[in-house]
C-alpha cells in the first residue's frame, strides 16, 4: 500500500505533459476542429487552381503572389484565433460537467499542473493545425512562384528587357515566394493565438458559461488590436493639453498589461507583403508572448487554486 513518504511537487513537467497529451487527444476528437481545419485546408488548397484575380493586367508578378498569400495567411490567422478561444473556453467546463475534473484533482495533481496541461494541449493542437496548413501553404506558394517566374521571365526575355531589369523582376517575385520571413510570420500567428488562449484560460477559471468566455476573449482580442492606437491618441492628447501626463502614462501601462497589445504582432502583414521580418524582432515578440502568458497563467492559477468544484 502506498505511503505518504514524498511531498507532491508544486509543478511537475511530466504530469503537465501527460495532461497536455490527454487534452490534445480530447480536442482532436471534437468535430469542430476537423471542420475548421478542413475548411481552411480547402481555402488554401483551392489556390492550386488558377483563379481570376482582382489585380489588373498592369500588375506585377509580386502583386499576384501577394493577392494569393494574403487570404491564405488570413485564413490561418482566423483558424488559430478561433481554435484558441473556443477550445480553451470548452475544456475546463467540459471536464467539470463530465466530472473528469473531480477524478483528476482527487489525485495528487496540483491545480497549476492541470491548468498548464490544458493550455499546453490547446497550444499543441493549434501548432499541429498551423503546421499542416503551413506545409500546404508553402507548397501552393512555391508552385505559383515557380510558374510565375517561368512566365514573367520568359515574357521579359521575349520583350527584350535588360539583364538588370530581368534580375530585378526575379528578385521581386522571389521576395513574395516562400521565405524565412514568411515562416516567422506564421509562427507569429501562433504566438498571438497562445496569448489569446491564455486570456481565455483566465476567463474560464472564473466564468461559469462557455459563451461568456468566448465573447469576452473575442472582445479582448479586438481591443488588443486597436488598444495601442487608442493609447497613443490619449497619451498624445494629454501631453498636448499638459494635464495629468503621469497618471495617463501609468493608466496606459496598466491597460497594456490588462489587455494584450497586438500591434507589434501586425508585423505578420509586413512579412506577407514580402518585407523583411528579422529574427531579432521575432525573438522580441517571443519575449512579449512569454510575458503575457506568464501574467495570465499566474492570474488563472490564483483564481483556480481557490475555485470550488
Amino acid at each position: 500500500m502506498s505511503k505518504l513518504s514524498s511531498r507532491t511537487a508544486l509543478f511537475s513537467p511530466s504530469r503537465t505533459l501527460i495532461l497536455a497529451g490527454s487534452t490534445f487527444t480530447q480536442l482532436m476528437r471534437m468535430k469542430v476542429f476537423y471542420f475548421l481545419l478542413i475548411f481552411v485546408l480547402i481555402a488554401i488548397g483551392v489556390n492550386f487552381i488558377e483563379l481570376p484575380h482582382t489585380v489588373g493586367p498592369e500588375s506585377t508578378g509580386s502583386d499576384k503572389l501577394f493577392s494569393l498569400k494574403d487570404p491564405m495567411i488570413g485564413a490561418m490567422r482566423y483558424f488559430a484565433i478561433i481554435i484558441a478561444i473556443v477550445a480553451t473556453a470548452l475544456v475546463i467546463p467540459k471536464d467539470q460537467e463530465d466530472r473528469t475534473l473531480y477524478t483528476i484533482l482527487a489525485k495528487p495533481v496540483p491545480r497549476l499542473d492541470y491548468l498548464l496541461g490544458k493550455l499546453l494541449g490547446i497550444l499543441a493542437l493549434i501548432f499541429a493545425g498551423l503546421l499542416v496548413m503551413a506545409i500546404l501553404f508553402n507548397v501552393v506558394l512555391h508552385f505559383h512562384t515557380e510558374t510565375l517566374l517561368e512566365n514573367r521571365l520568359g515574357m521579359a526575355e521575349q520583350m527584350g528587357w535588360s539583364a538588370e531589369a530581368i534580375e530585378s523582376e526575379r528578385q521581386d517575385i522571389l521576395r513574395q515566394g516562400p521565405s524565412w520571413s514568411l515562416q516567422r510570420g506564421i509562427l507569429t500567428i501562433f504566438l498571438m493565438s497562445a496569448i489569446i488562449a491564455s486570456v481565455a484560460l483566465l476567463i474560464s477559471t472564473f466564468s461559469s458559461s462557455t459563451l461568456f468566455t468566448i465573447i469576452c476573449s473575442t472582445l479582448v482580442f479586438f481591443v488588443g488590436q486597436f488598444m495601442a492606437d487608442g493609447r497613443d491618441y490619449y497619451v498624445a492628447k494629454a501631453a498636448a493639453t499638459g494635464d495629468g501626463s503621469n497618471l495617463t502614462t501609468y493608466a496606459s501601462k496598466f491597460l497594456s498589461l490588462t489587455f494584450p497589445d497586438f500591434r507589434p504582432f501586425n508585423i505578420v502583414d509586413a512579412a506577407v507583403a514580402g518585407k523583411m521580418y528579422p529574427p531579432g524582432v521575432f525573438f522580441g515578440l517571443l519575449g512579449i508572448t512569454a510575458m503575457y502568458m506568464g501574467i495570465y497563467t499566474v492570474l488563472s492559477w490564483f483564481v483556480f487554486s481557490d475555485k470550488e468544484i
Partner: protein
Amino acid sequence: MSDVNAVEVRDLVKEFKTSFRRGPLRAVDKVSFTIAPGEVYGLIGPNGSGKSTTMKALLGLVQPTSGTCSIFGHDSTKVDSRQDVGFLPENPYFYKHLSGEETIRFYGKLCGLRGAALKTRTNELLELVDLTNAKDRRLGGYSKGMLQRIGLAQALVQDPRLVILDEPTAGVDPIGSRQIRDLIFNLKSRGITVFLCSHLLEQVEEVCDHVGIIHKGRLIKSGRLEDLISIEEQTEIVLSNADPALLDDIKKLIDSRDGAELVRTGKPRTTLEHLFLRETRDADSSNDE
C-alpha cells in the same frame, strides 16, 4: 495498525454564497467524525443533506468555511493528502475517447506510475474489476456498471490506503451493484479504509462497520452499525427444522417466565435482491448447460 486516523473531520462548516438578500447557505453544519484505518464507514442521508459536500471538503475540492479535515494526519486542503486517496464520484464520465486500459494508465501516470510497474498495476486492476475482456473498448461503449467498475479501478490505481466512494451503485443494475459491493468487501479484507456516501440504506447496512447519519447538514447520529441498529431489549433465535411440538414447548417455557414475552414467530424472509440474484444466476446456469 497506525495510530493516526484515516479520516478526521472536526467541526466542518461549509457555507455557499447565494444572492445578497438570502444570505449564505449552510450545506454542512459543524460535522465531526473519525474513521479508523481499515474501517468501512458509511455516511448516509437524503439528497441535499451535505454528504457530497463533506466528501468534497475531504478531497480538497471545496474549501471549508471553518473546521478541519485530514487524511492520515495530512491537511486535506493540501495536495499531499491526495497521495493516499482514491475517489470514485457519483455517475463518473471519463474521457470517452480512451479505452478502459488507457483510462487506468492515464490516472496511473498522473500518480507517478511508469513502465513495467504501471503495466502490471493496470492488468491487476482490470482483473480485479473483471474488465480484462473489455480493456480495449472505448469507454463510450461501456455500460453504467462497467463505468462504475473502471471508475473504481482508477480510484485504486496508486494503491491508496483510503477509498472514497460517492453513491457507487447509483443507476447500476442489481448484478452490477453486487459486483461493486463484492469489490468493497475485497478492499475491506485487504485492510483498505473505505468511506462510502449513499442514500441506499440496504447497501450501507451490508458493507459498513460504522455509519453516520447526516440530515440538513448536521451529523445527527454516528457509531458502530451493530450498536445503532440492534434493539437492546429483544433477542432473536433462528431455528432450523424445528417441529410444531418444539415450538409449542418454547412458547410454554416463555409464558412461564415473568417479564419475558414472545413478540413474533414466522419464517425468515430473504430480500428481493437476493431472490433476483439467485434466480438470474440459476437461469444463467441452466442456459449454459
